């Protein structure tokens, strides 16, 4: 079983990223549960999307001991890394996250939003770049399943740029 927490601020597409990750796992024939928590604001404020992927049925749907934390803002890192074990994988968007507690041993600082803007022209591809890092750093979902899941969710006409985003993330770590 692997537990993911994707966190950032509302509007960064993290709930969608969680859904895509869970759908990729189901595509790979695994069990997956996705849940989320957010404040009343649709934009801004910190939000998290949690995904548990397992070979066996998943009972409790909330993440207890994350194996993987994505932090897209400093505020999200401060808020959602408190129960993160020292050995867990931590991916931060270095565009926004500067201070990382020293106790973490597996930290990947990726300029996710900066890459999205500079390489793909728009910051809204940041969540898909982040999913590329997930596919690379864990073996829980295949890159093929991830790509299939991404393409099933994104608007028609944006398939190619989203495929690039995924690749960009995959190669950034």
């Amino acid at each position, binding site marked *: 079983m692997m537990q993911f927490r994707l966190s950032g601020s509302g509007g960064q597409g993290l709930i969608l990223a969680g859904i895509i990750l869970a759908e990729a796992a189901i595509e790979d024939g695994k069990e997956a*549960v996705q849940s989320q928590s957010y404040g009343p604001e649709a934009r801004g404020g910190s939000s998290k999307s949690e995904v548990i992927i397992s070979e066996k049925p998943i009972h409790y*749907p909330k993440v207890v001991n994350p194996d993987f934390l994505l932090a897209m803002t400093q505020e999200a890192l401060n808020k959602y890394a408190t129960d993160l074990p020292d050995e867990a994988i931590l991916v931060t968007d270095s565009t926004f996250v500067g201070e990382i507690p020293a106790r973490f041993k597996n930290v990947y600082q990726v300029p996710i939003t900066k890459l999205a803007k500079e390489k793909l022209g728009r910051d809204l591809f940041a969540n898909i770049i982040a999913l590329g890092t997930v596919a690379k750093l864990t073996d829980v979902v295949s890159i093929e399943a991830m790509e299939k899941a991404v393409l099933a969710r994104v608007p028609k006409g944006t398939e190619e740029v989203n495929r690039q985003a995924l690749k960009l993330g995959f190669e950034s770590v």
Partner: protein
Amino acid sequence: MAKAVLMQGNHACAEGAIAAGARFFAGYPITPSTEVAELLAKRLPQVGGSFIQMEDEIAGMAAIIGASLAGTKSLTATSGPGFSLKQELIGYASMAEVPCVIVNVQRTGPSTGQPTSPAQGDVMQARWGSHGDRGVIALSPSSVPECFTLTVEAFNLAEKYRTPVVLLLDEIIGHMREKFVMPDPASLTIVNRKKPALPPGEFLPYKPEADGVAPMPGYGEGYRFHTTGLVHDYTGFPSGSNAVTHELIERLHTKITNNIDDIVKYEALELDDAEVAVVAFGGTARSAYAAIESARAEGIKAGLFRPITIWPVPEKQLFTVAEKVKTIIVAEMNYGQYVGEVRRVVCGKANVVSLAKWNNDPITPNELLNAIKAGR
């Protein structure tokens, strides 16, 4: 077989309604139930049905009663505050015996509370929320696939017993997404309301048959029947008679209690040799599965009794559990509601412990495991 997809609980509920034959939804947006309305706004017209967003929660309830009387299976969806507003008309639907389904995705309360946080604080509101006295059916799903099957079941019970049926979700189950495989429509049991066998003129719209339920014509079928929320006799017209009042109110209870074996559903897990039984429903049952798995791994004999029908209470089955175990832990996301029912039912046969939590966070498997250890 259909392909496995990731589906949200609220969406499974909406799809269950379509599969059950519901063709009318009226409601008002409220977190965390809104996705039920949003999906049905799209899905109902695709199958020839109608969706309307009304001006308030009360109007949503009124419209589904009207549509159901006219002959169309109908539902609404809401959360605690809206459920409160609907209560008067839920009572109307009980009194006038109008089949309908009310989905309540519970959130933290009272009042506006925490709209995006889970709770199970409407357990007693589902039972006693409306004024007066009546029997009640409420179901509580614990998974996304069960959101689908229990919505179908809710319609079946509503139609069979001519009563409003409450589908009591919580935010955990309503908002989470998990694997779902759409059942083959042919595999589903769909119950439709009994239609009158007698012609207009001879038919009495509120004369019960042996099961306590009268057949129900729809509008435009020539029966020209009258419906009222007043106490009424078999003709459907108001009556001030004490005898009529006594019989009617009693039947609103007994048509459910006399058919309790047909109505109640529950899950009994690892109870055969259990010393400690957990009673949990809805989202809390998910924690219980995990806690019991951990307890068993440590050699602790723990099991789960999960009321799927939370009203009426599966009394007989719960009492049997109490006769075998030492301790019953009632885990619920409120200040302690269902625990009172469990205590009432088990009559001291077992030690009943409340594990209640009301701080927006679900009860964790660890908290429950600790309670199980303490209850040995």
